[in-house]
């Protein structure tokens, strides 16, 4: 599910960034990464945590995919990452920083 906003974000060289209100950290008790937001705590899968960790506003969506594909050679991650980012934007965990 990639809505128009995500396509635009990817196409226009947007850089995904965690919203300032969201905090990503590792939880020792559960042994998982968690994303903390005003009204909820999301226990993340390893993949989700890896993508979100890279959403720092410093790299484009394409660069994010390249970074992950270097780490997992042979995997084609573009579609999955785009889908995940689409959901993350919809849930207001992540926003696109568009180039000026």
């Amino acid at each position, binding site marked *: 599910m990639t809505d128009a906003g995500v396509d635009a974000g990817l196409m226009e060289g947007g850089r995904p960034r965690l919203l300032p209100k969201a905090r990503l950290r590792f939880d020792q008790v*559960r042994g998982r990464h968690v994303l903390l937001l005003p009204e909820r705590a999301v226990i993340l899968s390893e993949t989700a945590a890896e993508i979100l960790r890279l959403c720092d506003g410093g790299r484009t969506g394409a660069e994010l995919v390249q970074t992950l594909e270097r780490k997992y050679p042979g995997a084609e991650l573009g579609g999955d990452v785009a889908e995940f980012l689409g959901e993350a934007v919809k849930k207001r965990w992540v926003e696109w920083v568009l180039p000026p």
Partner: protein
Amino acid sequence: MGPPSLDPPASLLAEITHRCPIHCLYCSNPLELTRRADELPTEVWLRVLAEAADLGVLQVHLSGGEPLARADLAALVERATALELYTNLITSGVGLTRARAQALRDAGLGAVQLSIQAAGPELSRVIAGGEFWQRKMDAARHVRDAGLPLGMNVVLHRYNLHQVTGLLELAASLGAERVELANAQYYGWALRNRDHLLPAREMVEAAEREVARFRERAGDTMEILWVIPDYHAEFPKPCMNGWARMFLTVAPDGTALPCPAASVIPGLDPPSVRQHSTRWIWFESPAFNRFRGFEWMSDPCRSCPRRFEDFGGCRCQAYLLAGDPAVTDPVCTYSPHRHLVTEALGRGGGDPGAPVYRMPIKTRGGE
């Protein structure tokens, strides 16, 4: 250790005081409010925060009463932040000056949830029992100016259900990113004033349609949460997501409870953080284990497939309406006590007498 399948609590509801400048007709605090002299001292709250973080708590909701009534609020936020806990301030806004909002942000506060009683000052005065409107509007501005995320929450009932669109427009104009429209739950002062507050079904349905229309118009620029009124529902709410499954409440005097209303349950004998660690309270205490799982249930819950979704509903409501905290929530269509809810709904339109405002507590300091 408790049963191996038992998860740690994700949230701590820290009710740091019952003191509050406003007197809402539906206040969920117990009828017997804790006096200032009986409130936990700062050092105990600091210990509770550390224990909670160690136990697996991820979020702390600082609530009350009005949490701003405590001068050590920023110190508590600072400690929670150092422990990597996400902090939410749940406030009436009264006392939230520009300087205080900035100090709380600097201490690491995550977000603010501001309570609003009505879409305008006149009705707000009636529901909150005083002149607080302008201070609430100012508080919202100070929160946004401090760069903190703002949520707005409104308790809905017969007096304000017709204002739902106005409330949503107000939230948008204040810069709220999330609005919680929560139909009143009938505990504490709300139960006392139930005949005043309980809306007719048509009012609820009209409000629901207004929310849907606003959602269409506004898209997802603002998150809107609509909490259904359980008296009008066919099945009970999964109260607290199950007794002592996710939430740990600590009341102003240190009483630890699976939910803020549970102090009404007779014989519960809830533990206090003054005497026990939060770990013992969560895993071992009889009070927290009393309605965990499904063994305590009787029919119709015991053999009902819905028990895995709603956990039998609310224990406090079962006690308050049917006199037994271990029976099926009387809201449930299968409950032999459902007639108690239906009768309460049928009393609308009669003369309920004068409403009872939540009374301010006298404190030694004479505040």
